[in-house]
C-alpha cells in the first residue's frame, strides 16, 4: 500500500507541500529553541560549576548546642534557667575524615575527578586599597578536572598555581579594584598576619559578585595562611555524567555527618529557571506540532472524502480493513518523517546562523550565543513530528477502513 500511498501524495503536490512545510516548520522551531535554550543552559551550568561542582562535600558548622550543655550539667529533676544561654561556634567548618572520603570517592566508578579545598575569608591589600574576599585553596591539576576553570582565565593560566609558593589567581574585578595585574604582588591578611602573594592570573566568570570577591591559590599556601596545615573545608567532586549527581550525593550523604550537596541542590533557583525553560520549550513545540497535526488530519480527511469510491473499489477487490488503514497511515507517516527530516535540516541551518551572530558583548567564552547541537534534540524532534502525524492520520484512516463498499456505491455515505 506504500506504493499507492505515495502516488496519492505526489498527485496532490500543493497540499502535500503545504503540510510538509507545516510539519517541518514545527520541527525547525523545536530544534532552534532547544538549541539556544540548551546552549544557554550549558553556559549557565558551566558558570555554576566553577563555584560549586557536581557534588560538593563540606564540613558542618560546629555551633554550640545549648540543650546538650543543659543536659550535661543539670540533674534530671531540677529545672535550669540560663541568664545568658551559651552561644557560639566550637570550630570552623571542616572535614574530619578526608582520607575516609578519598576512599569512598575512589571506590565510586562514576567519579571523574575530585579535589580537596580550603575556602577561607581574607583581606587582599595593595597599597591603600583593601578588599574583603574569599580565597579558595585547591590542588590546581585536580581543580581543572573538576571545573572548566581554565576556560575562564583571561590572563595568565590556572596552571601557574601548580607547585604553590604563594601564587594567587584573582577575580577579574577584584584585580581591577586592587589595581593590580598579572605579575604584580599583593598582600593577604588573615588571622593577624600578612603574607605576600604574586598574582599569576585573573579569571572572569561573568558574575561581578564572584569576580569581585574571590581568588584561587594552592591548597598548601592557603592552609599555611590559615595556620591550619592539613585542614580542608570541602571536597569538590566531578562525575563523568552530571545526571548521576543526584543519586550519588544521596548515597554519600548517609555515610557521615558532612554535608553532601549535588549541584542542583546548591543552585535551586537556577534549576527552577531551567525547568521553566524546558516547560516553555515543550509547550511551544507542542502547540506548533498540534497545528501541524491538524493540518495532516485535514488533508487526509479531505483526501478520504474525495477518494471514497476508490476506497470502495479497493474493498470490493478484496483489500481488507487493515490495508485501507495502512494506506492512510502510510501517508501520515510519510508526511511526518519527511517533514521531520526537512525540519531537522532547516533547524540545523537556523541554529548555525543564530550561533554565528556576533552579539557585540562577551557571553561566557565568546561573543556568540552558545548553541547546543546534541543529537538527542534532533531525534526527539523527528519522533515528535512522526508521532503527531500518525496520531493525526489515525482518525481519518480508521473512518476510511470502516467504510463499506456497498454504502459508498449506493451513495449513502
Amino acid at each position, binding site marked *: 500500500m506504500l*506504493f*499507492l500511498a505515495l*502516488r*496519492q501524495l*505526489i*498527485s496532490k503536490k500543493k497540499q502535500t507541500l503545504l503540510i510538509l512545510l507545516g510539519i517541518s516548520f514545527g520541527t525547525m522551531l523545536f530544534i532552534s529553541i532547544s538549541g539556544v535554550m540548551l546552549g544557554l543552559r550549558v553556559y549557565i551550568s558551566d558558570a555554576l560549576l566553577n563555584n560549586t561542582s557536581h557534588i560538593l562535600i563540606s564540613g558542618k558548622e560546629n555551633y554550640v548546642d545549648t540543650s546538650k550543655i543543659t543536659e550535661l550539667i543539670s540533674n534530671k529533676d531540677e529545672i535550669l534557667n540560663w541568664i545568658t544561654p551559651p552561644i557560639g561556634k566550637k570550630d570552623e567548618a571542616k572535614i574530619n575524615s578526608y582520607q575516609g572520603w578519598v576512599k569512598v570517592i575512589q571506590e565510586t566508578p562514576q567519579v571523574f575527578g575530585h579535589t580537596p579545598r580550603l575556602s577561607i575569608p581574607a583581606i587582599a591589600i595593595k597599597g591603600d586599597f583593601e578588599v574583603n574576599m574569599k580565597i579558595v585553596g585547591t590542588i590546581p591539576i585536580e581543580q581543572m578536572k573538576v571545573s572548566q576553570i581554565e576556560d575562564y582565565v583571561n590572563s595568565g593560566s590556572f596552571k601557574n598555581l601548580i607547585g604553590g609558593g604563594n601564587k594567587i589567581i584573582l577575580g577579574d574585578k577584584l584585580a581591577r579594584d586592587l589595581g593590580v595585574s598579572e605579575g604584580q604582588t599583593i598582600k593577604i591578611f588573615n588571622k593577624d598576619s600578612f603574607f605576600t602573594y604574586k598574582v599569576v592570573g585573573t579569571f572572569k566568570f561573568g558574575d561581578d559578585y564572584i569576580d569581585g570577591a574571590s581568588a584561587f591559590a594552592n591548597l598548601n599556601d592557603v592552609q599555611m595562611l590559615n595556620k591550619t596545615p592539613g585542614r580542608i573545608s570541602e571536597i569538590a567532586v566531578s562525575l563523568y555524567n552530571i545526571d548521576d549527581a543526584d543519586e550519588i550525593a544521596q548515597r554519600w550523604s548517609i555515610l557521615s555527618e558532612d554535608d553532601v550537596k549535588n549541584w542542583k541542590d546548591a543552585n535551586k533557583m537556577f534549576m527552577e529557571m531551567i525547568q521553566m525553560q524546558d516547560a516553555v520549550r515543550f509547550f511551544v513545540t507542542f502547540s506548533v506540532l498540534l497545528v501541524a497535526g491538524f493540518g495532516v488530519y485535514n488533508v487526509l480527511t479531505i483526501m478520504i472524502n474525495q477518494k471514497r*469510491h*476508490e476506497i*470502495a*473499489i*479497493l*474493498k*470490493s*477487490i*478484496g*483489500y*481488507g*480493513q487493515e*490495508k485501507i488503514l495502512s494506506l492512510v497511515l502510510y501517508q501520515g507517516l510519510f508526511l511526518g518523517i519527511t517533514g521531520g527530516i526537512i525540519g531537522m535540516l532547516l533547524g540545523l541551518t537556523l541554529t548555525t546562523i543564530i550561533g554565528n551572530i556576533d552579539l557585540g558583548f562577551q557571553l561566557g567564552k565568546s561573543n556568540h550565543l552558545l548553541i547546543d547541537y546534541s543529537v538527542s534534540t534532533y531525534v526527539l524532534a523527528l519522533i515528535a513530528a512522526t508521532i503527531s502525524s500518525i496520531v493525526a492520520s489515525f482518525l481519518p484512516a480508521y473512518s476510511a477502513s470502516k467504510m*463499506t*463498499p*456497498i454504502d459508498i*456505491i*449506493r451513495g449513502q455515505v
Partner: protein
Amino acid sequence: MIEAQNILKQFGEPAQTVLHNINLEVKKGEFVSIKGRSGSGKSTLLYILSTLDTPTSGKVLIDGIDISSFSQKELHAFRNLHIGFIFQFHYLIPELTALENILLPPRNINKIKEYTDDAHKLLKRLDIEDVTNKFPAQMSGGQTQRVAIARALIMKPKYIFADEPTGNLDTANGDTVMNILIEENQQRGTNICLVTHDPDYSKMASREISLIDGRIED
C-alpha cells in the same frame, strides 16, 4: 453455483421492503441478466448475491457455503480470488496507470509478477494496448470501462457481477463490453450476473430474470 434462499431486504426507518422473499439459483457457467425498472431492487439483489451487501433475512449460498458464515478476512480473500466487479462508473484509481490499475487485485496478495503477463494479454484482447501506461484521465470513456473490465478479469474469477456496465457508454462501446462478457462466459465458463435496464443487452444473456417491485416476475 449461487443460491439465494428467501431473501428479504429492508431499508430505512420505518422499514421499506425492497426485496420480497426472493428465491433464485444461478447455475454453474450461466449468464444471467437481472432486468427491471429503476427502483425495482435489481442492483440491491446483485450486491446481495455478490457478497457486498447482506440481506435482512434469508441466505446466500455460494458453491453450497453460506456466505454469512465467512469472516471479514475470508470474505475479502474470496472476493479477491473469485469475484470480479464491473460498475457503471469505472472507479479506476486516478493516480495509477491502466496496467497498475489492472494489477490491483494481484497486488493485494503480492503476486504482481505472476500476473503481469496476463495483464498484457488482457490489454491486447480488449484492444487497449495503447493505454497501458496512461492514466485514467488520459483515456476515453470506453477505454476506462475496458480497463475496469480487465481489472475484474485479471484473477480469472469464477463470478463476474456487472452493475449497468454499459450505462455510461455509447452503443459501439456498449456492444464491445457486452461482447467481452459473452466471450468470457462462453470461453471460460465464467458465471456472469448482469444488471441492466437495456432490453437488448438483457436478451444476450442465457437467462433473464425480471424484477418488478422487489419480486421476481415469472
